[in-house]
């Protein structure tokens, strides 16, 4: 008695897709739920990775930047850097370039003399050397960097320009700085590694000495080091800068700031991934719900298939495949939408588009897993339905 049944794999897929095609709108809507959740997950990963790529890029470029700054003495008094500090630091062999800024104290910057002197906007005035731009690798957003050191000219940090409300500059753009009008000759691009430059108004040492008696003193030194010897240089920097009182200076590695920002982004990614996963869970419950309804509606079909020779297994596979196909279709659409969202977001933020390879793969895998899980119970119910009962459906 020849009686073995078998359902070809291709036929199983065809049966399931036909089942989905028979209920197009319902299938499309429930797949859309999965698509949105997967798109959110892929976009979170993609956007985070794109902005992280930007930060990591900066980290790579800024990793060998060190700073030496005025610290406090043990008694709590501000300690200026010794006048010899920049020159001494330059003599450390792995140091490639050095630049210094001097804090001009008691001087405010305002849009004009009519603005009350209390409204400083938190802007500091720094005397800067021409090498600042190169050492910090900060481009000028507009203008030039103090082309005439003897003239009262000023270059504004990115935040400073915004605080003062200065966007475009021309020969008439001036700010009121310490009792004199200075011509704004340039605006710096943002410097994530040196936020103190962002909020500063930079003037030349010559002018600072002449108008504000700075006497060439430095409050902070920036230096570029051989990337392989950053730690070695950092270790000797305090002694070199202030041999008499090494504890009065603070040695910093600004790229640590970038690391902190990357870590902070990671924390947000975790949060958003959690929210995206909840969305996916909700979509999965929706799929399970739709599949349970489908099984109830299709009792007669289940009975018929059993009468035609379908095993319990064949019926279970049919519904499980329907569920998995539904969520996989949603997953494919979701990955596409997520990548598109990432590209748009990265474009708007000016970041490179960096979608981690794991994002689309994980998105599809998650969709498939949700489909399989959501389809389990309905498939089991369909398979357990006694054929005679199923066929008695009115």
């Amino acid at each position, binding site marked *: 008695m020849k009686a073995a049944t078998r359902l070809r794999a291709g036929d199983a897929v065809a049966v399931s897709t036909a089942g989905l095609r028979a209920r197009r709108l319902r299938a499309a809507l429930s797949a859309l739920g999965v698509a949105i959740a997967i798109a959110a997950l892929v976009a979170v990963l993609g956007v985070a990775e794109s902005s992280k790529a930007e930060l990591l890029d900066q980290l790579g470029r800024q990793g060998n930047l060190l700073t030496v700054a005025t610290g406090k003495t043990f008694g709590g008094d501000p300690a200026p850097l010794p006048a010899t500090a920049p020159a001494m630091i330059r003599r450390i062999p792995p140091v490639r370039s050095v630049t210094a800024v001097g804090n001009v104290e008691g001087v405010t910057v305002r849009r004009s003399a009519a603005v009350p002197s209390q409204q400083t906007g938190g802007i500091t005035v720094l005397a800067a050397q021409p090498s600042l731009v190169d050492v910090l690798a900060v481009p000028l957003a507009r203008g030039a960097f103090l082309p005439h050191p003897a003239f009262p000219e000023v270059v504004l940090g990115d935040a400073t320009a915004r605080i003062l409300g200065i966007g475009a500059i021309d020969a008439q753009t001036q700010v009121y700085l310490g009792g004199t009008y200075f011509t704004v000759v340039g605006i710096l691009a943002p410097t994530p590694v040196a936020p103190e430059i962002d909020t500063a108004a930079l003037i030349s040492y010559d002018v600072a000495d002449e108008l504000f008696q700075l006497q060439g003193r430095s409050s902070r030194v920036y230096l570029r080091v051989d990337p392989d010897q950053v730690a070695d240089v950092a270790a000797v920097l305090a002694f070199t800068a202030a041999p008499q009182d090494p504890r009065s200076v603070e040695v910093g590695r600004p790229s640590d700031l970038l690391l902190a920002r990357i870590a902070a982004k990671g924390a947000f990614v975790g949060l958003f991934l959690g929210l995206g996963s909840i969305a996916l869970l909700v979509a999965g419950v929706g799929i399970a719900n739709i599949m349970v309804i489908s099984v109830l509606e299709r009792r007669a079909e289940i009975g018929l298939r059993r009468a035609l*020779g379908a095993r319990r297994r064949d019926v279970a596979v049919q519904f499980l495949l329907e569920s998995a196909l539904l969520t996989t279709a949603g997953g494919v659409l979701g990955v596409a939408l997520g990548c598109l969202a990432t590209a748009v977001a990265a474009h708007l933020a000016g970041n490179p588009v960096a979608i981690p390879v794991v994002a689309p793969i994980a998105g599809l895998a998650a969709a498939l897993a949700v489909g399989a899980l959501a389809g389990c119970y309905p498939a089991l119910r369909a398979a357990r339905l006694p054929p005679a009962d199923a066929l008695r459906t009115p």
Partner: protein
Amino acid sequence: MTTALELHLVNKIYPPPTTVTALRDVSLVVRTGETVAITGPSGAGKTTLLSILGTLERPTSGAVRIAGTDTTDLSDPDLAGVRAWHLGFVFQQFFLLDHLSVLDNVATGLLYRGVPAATRRARAGEVLERVGLSGRLRHRPAQLSGGERQRVAIARALVGQPAVLLADEPTGNLDSATGQEIAALLAGLGGSTTVVLITHNMEVAATMARQVQLRDGRILDTADAP
């Protein structure tokens, strides 16, 4: 003459909460190629009898032999195999799949034998020609009349050339003229295919070679057609 179907002292008692005794000590032998009508009022146990003959349900006690094989100890997949290879079903409600064409509906009759799709379609085309529907292959079931739909269902049952065709009120949803045509079609299968048909329509029953009356789960008497 060989035996196509054999029931021996079959009882069917549905479990609580209903606890209905649907069949009591039913014994029945259907010979190969025979056409049999099972008649009786509603609730007599006709559909239960057909389900048990079709291995869609297991009896509470008693034995069912199909084409010489005792089905009592067969597993669920084995029973599915018996249905796929030896039995064809026709139902009152047709149970056609709305989203498939007439041709594909009939081809579904071979789906669970693992026959390739092209072969399934070719055979479906042949059977549809036999039932007079060769012009309707690409139609959807919804575009057909009731009689045509039942012909599609009969073609689906016959596409695998089963030994036994089981029909549960196949004319129940049709007007009497169409019903007689369907009954005649089924009766004409006798000789090569064993046909067991359930009906409470005596005219339809009369088209079968033998009538078996069922009442309260018992067989009253069997009579060969005059």
